[in-house]
């Protein structure tokens, strides 16, 4: 019997709709524990494919008969093998098309709001890795913020809504994923903006993004106001779009805050991080809708799959914004940090233009969750 592929897009819909799914993950135990497909109503069984080469009889009773079953592996080959064995044993199962490699690269566009003068803002949810990027569209022009290396997805999307990409921004020099900003800017002749303090070592031309600067998108003059907010990196810059949306980069997330150590400067940047979160952000309107560059846990997703919350709500509920004592804050963001993202040094060097790994190598560097936050 042939087994059916399930696409990353179909799995994403199941996460957004909180559907039930039983995942048989046949990667090795270490890879599974490090990083897996997360869904609120997903159940898991991890048995490495190499323990199933002689047959699946021994695991049949661990697989439910009343739930949809998805077999997952790194690149899909092993999951097809195991899915076929299960199918021969009489089960109806699917495998994840392209495996975790495709899962890591899937982007799901979700509209997060309308702009006052006409136009929209879209969030591209990289569901497998927790990265969020944005497209601001106004009157046939578009700006991209924190774009991933899957550049065709943005280019195709912009074309599908009839918008021309004119400005590309990175809120900071990323350490967890490879930026698509420079490539998109080259392909579209857009201006590529980077905070100069993060760009000291870059090998390419860029426009320096300084706090206080404004960039206009479209004829209706959608304002992108830059706000210097160091702490995750020394150059980290937030944006206020249309006086309504706060794009917080890797400084503030929904249920966590940025970590200051990924450029090796934790102790030096703690004070900056606190200043950005506890002073600069406090001066902003609590009505602003926070749109971060990451989510860490699936519970941070809203009903429609988007990730956003009012700044006032975060001041009330986000633990990282409610630590009175400076020493306690210092401890939170420097002690007991989660492991650093896979290959984060090489990723930083790639984003600086110092090294140019091929696509296969880039995929490998980005394997795993983003880990840019502390809770």
């Amino acid at each position: 019997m042939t087994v059916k592929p399930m696409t990353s897009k179909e799995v994403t819909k199941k996460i957004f709709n909180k559907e039930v799914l039983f995942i048989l993950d046949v990667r090795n135990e270490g890879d599974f524990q490090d990083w897996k497909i997360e869904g609120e109503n997903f159940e898991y069984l991890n048995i490495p494919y190499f323990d199933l080469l002689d047959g699946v009889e021994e695991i049949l009773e661990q697989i439910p008969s009343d739930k949809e079953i998805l077999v997952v592996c790194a690149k899909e080959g092993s999951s097809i093998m195991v899915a076929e064995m299960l199918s021969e044993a009489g089960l109806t199962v699917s495998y994840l098309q392209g495996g975790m490699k495709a899962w890591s690269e899937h982007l799901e566009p979700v509209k997060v709001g309308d702009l006052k003068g006409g136009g929209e803002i879209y969030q591209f949810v990289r569901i497998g890795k927790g990265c969020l990027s944005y497209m601001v569209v106004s009157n046939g022009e578009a700006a991209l913020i924190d774009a991933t290396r899957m550049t065709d997805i943005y280019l195709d999307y912009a074309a599908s809504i009839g918008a021309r990409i004119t400005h590309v921004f990175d809120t900071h020099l990323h350490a967890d994923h490879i930026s698509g900003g420079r490539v998109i800017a080259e392909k579209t002749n857009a201006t590529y903006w980077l905070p100069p303090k993060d760009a000291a070592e870059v090998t390419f031309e860029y426009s320096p993004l300084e706090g206080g600067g404004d960039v206009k998108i479209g004829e209706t003059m959608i304002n992108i106001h830059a706000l210097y907010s160091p702490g995750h990196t020394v150059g980290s810059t937030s944006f206020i779009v249309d006086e309504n949306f706060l794009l917080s980069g890797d400084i503030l997330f929904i249920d966590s805050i940025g970590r200051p150590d990924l450029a090796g400067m934790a102790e030096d940047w703690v004070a900056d991080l606190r200043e950005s979160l506890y002073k600069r952000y406090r001066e902003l309107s609590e009505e602003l809708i926070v749109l971060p560059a990451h989510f860490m846990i699936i519970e941070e997703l809203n009903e429609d799959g988007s990730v956003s919350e009012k700044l006032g709500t975060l001041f009330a509920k986000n633990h990282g914004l409610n630590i009175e004592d400076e020493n306690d804050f210092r401890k939170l963001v420097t002690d007991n940090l989660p492991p650093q993202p896979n290959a984060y040094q090489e990723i930083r060097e790639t984003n600086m233009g110092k090294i140019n790994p091929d696509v296969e190598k880039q995929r490998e560097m980005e394997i795993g969750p983003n880990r840019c936050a502390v809770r």
Partner: protein
Amino acid sequence: MNVDKVLDAKGLACPMPIVKTKKAINELEAGQVLEIHTTDKGAKNDLSAWAKSGGHDLLKHEEENSVLKFWIKKG
């Protein structure tokens, strides 16, 4: 090192390197050493986990011009 058998699994995608390794190991006696060549990057974690669960010894591994080489002693 005394190598009893060499397995060329270059160009093969997962799960084939492990499928072939398992077959080759079955043909060896306990204590004999199998040398494996593969270009599948995922093989590194999988081979060491497989060897461990099967009671075999991964003696060493190295990378040479994007070819991964492993030496496994049958347990």
